[in-house]
């Protein structure tokens, strides 16, 4: 299982900040696609992703036990 953490407005969209999801061997992009279908999460295309607190791109492959954080980029100031 992959542990998923949701930051900022994504936490509100889902109603919780953490969940576990099947995803061993998937890429980050595939996990995003799965989250989008299962939870109707919008805007995942442009979020930053951290895998085990390390910045990761869409091609990164996930393994059981990984913690994936989705972090929306912030632009205001």
């Amino acid at each position, binding site marked *: 299982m992959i542990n998923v*953490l949701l*930051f*900022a*407005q994504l*936490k*509100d969209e889902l109603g919780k*900040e953490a969940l576990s999801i099947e995803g061993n061997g998937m890429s980050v992009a595939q996990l995003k696609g799965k989250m989008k279908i299962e939870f109707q999460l*919008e*805007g995942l295309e*442009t979020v*930053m992703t*951290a895998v085990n*607190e*390390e*910045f*990761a*791109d869409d091609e990164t492959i996930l393994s059981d036990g990984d913690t994936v*954080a989705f*972090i*929306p*980029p*912030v*632009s*205001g*100031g």
Partner: protein
Amino acid sequence: MNERYSRQTLFSPIGEGGQVKIQQKHVLLLGAGALGSANAEALTRAGVGKLTIVDRDYVETSNLQRQQLYTEQDVEEKLPKAEAAKRHLHAINHEVEVKAVIMDATAQTLEPLLGHVDLIMDATDNFETRMIINDLSQKLQIPWIYGACVGSVGMTMTILPGQTPCLHCLLKTIPIQGMTCDTGGIISPAVTMVVAHQIAEALKILVEDWESVRPSLVTFDLWRNQYQTVRLTKVKKKDCLSCGDQRTYPFLTLENATKTAVLCGRDTVQVRPPKPLKLQLEKLAKDLNGSGYSVKVNPFLLSCEKNGERMVVFQDGRALVHGTKNMVHAKAMYQSILG
């Protein structure tokens, strides 16, 4: 020992030697809004040698809740933010040479200001300008510190050319339709928290304590009680167009800039993004409704109005700002809504 800076020099990583360095440095601060005014005050109190402040906007009532340098008097006088900031900063520390530049920051207008700049502080409100800063930083080898906030959320990262990844390594494309302070609101502690991180980084860079510079991106949410640092050791890209081997500095070219034009015979400015977008107009309407705009939306366009100004946004990102011939003002309004 200079009494004014005594507590700062007692802090051993700075010391007397560090203070001398701080007073020899020139910082360019881009943006004089919430992040800008807090950054400007901290740098001025710390005794930076020279501070150049660039901003295109003037002080309004809705700024006072969080933009800590400004007063009701500034609103009354409709002072440009850079100029108002300069006046207040002079009263705080007259030893700092503050230069106010009232202009719209583009690749072409910014580069001439960066001749003898040691550090660029980001206090802008949009990614387009940040990507310009990012390219100029790489081209001219000047460190910069990304900082941003919206709602109760903030984010910051330090970019050292030749060492760390750059912002373009992290964001392959400019994120569209992010939350802005005009759509998602903003509370002052989110500002303060970002600035605390930015200024700590700035002091490290100004005293040249490179080893202590934070190697990670920080993000937090003060309302939802989240704080995360993200390491950046794997993200620097050899083929990055901004910092890689075959770099072209794509954001310094005109084709990647938002364009504005006054429409002939009408009190209207057209704003056009560099590439056509696919906006979710319904979502944008919802965000704007919650923040004081009166909004009308149909599948093709969104019309929003506030304080007598009206903007029509089409699904491809093109917009018409009615009631003005001022292109800088129109672009500011557009970016305050679309980020």
